C-alpha cells in the first residue's frame, strides 16, 4: 500500500522459500488485522486485508503482468504487496465498517496457517539435519 516491503514472494522455488514467503505474508497480514481490530471503534474506518497469497505468488512468478527481459526495465507495479479494502458487511452510523467476528476468524485463520508453514519449514530443515547425521 504505502511502503514496499519484502512481502511479495520473489518467485519462490523450493519448499523452504515457499514457506518463508508464506510466513512473511502471514506476518504482514497479522499486522493489517491487528490494525483493523484496534480501529474497531474509529469513525469512518474501513477494514483492510492483504491480497490473497496465491494471487501474490502468481504475480511474482510472472503469471500476469509484463515480463522483464532486460535488467534496465522498470519493475511494474505488478508485484507491489497490496492491501485492499475489505468488502463491508455492516457499516455503523459513525461510518465504521469493521466486523469484529469476521476479523477474529481471520486472525484464527492466520494463526493456523502460520503453524502449518512453520512446521513445514521445520520438517524440511529436519530432513537436512537427518542427512547430516545430527538428528535430535
Amino acid at each position, binding site marked *: 500500500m504505502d511502503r514496499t516491503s519484502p512481502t511479495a514472494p520473489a518467485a519462490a522455488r523450493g519448499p523452504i522459500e515457499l514457506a518463508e514467503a508464506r510466513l512473511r505474508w502471514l506476518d504482514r497480514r497479522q499486522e493489517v488485522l491487528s490494525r483493523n*481490530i*484496534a*480501529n474497531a*471503534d474509529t469513525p469512518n474506518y474501513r477494514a483492510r486485508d492483504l491480497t490473497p497469497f496465491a494471487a501474490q505468488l502468481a504475480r511474482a512468478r510472472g503469471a500476469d503482468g509484463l515480463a522483464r527481459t532486460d535488467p534496465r526495465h522498470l519493475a511494474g507495479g505488478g508485484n507491489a504487496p497490496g492491501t485492499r479494502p475489505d468488502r463491508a458487511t455492516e457499516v455503523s452510523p459513525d461510518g465504521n465498517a469493521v466486523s469484529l467476528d469476521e476479523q477474529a476468524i481471520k486472525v484464527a485463520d*492466520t494463526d493456523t496457517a502460520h503453524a502449518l508453514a512453520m512446521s513445514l*519449514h521445520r520438517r524440511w530443515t529436519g530432513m537436512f539435519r537427518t542427512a547430516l547425521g545430527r538428528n535430535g
Partner: protein
Amino acid sequence: MDMDRALRISAAGMAAQSTRLRVVAENLANRDSTGGAPGADPYRRRTVTFANQLDRATGAQTVNVSRIGQAQGDFPKRFDPSHPAADAQGYVKTPNVDSLIEVMDMREAQRSYSANLSVLEATRGMLTRTIEALR
C-alpha cells in the same frame, strides 16, 4: 518486523479503550454532580473520539484518542426548591448522563479491549513458534 508492529498496534488499541473506560467511569461518577450556584450548569457528559494515527517510529498505523469532547444536549431538570443550585422557579439542572448509555459504552469498550487482547495473544503465539524454530 511486522509482528512487532502488530503487537504495538494491539497495545495502542488497548490503551485507547482504557481511556474510553476511564471517561465512562468519570461520567458515571459525576452522575449527580450539579452546579453550586443558582441556575449554574451541572457536569456535562464527556465523549471519546478515536482516530487512526501513523506511528512514525515504527511506520505502523495505530489508533489513539483524538479528542475528549463534551456531549451536547439539554440538561434534564428536577424540581427541588431547597437545592443550592435551584433557579427562581425551583428547578435544578442535573447532568446529561444517561446510565444506560454509559453501561452500553462500557460493554463496547470491554468487548473491543478483549478483541485486542486476543489478537495480542495470537501474535505472541506466532512469535513464540518462530522463536522455537531456532531450537
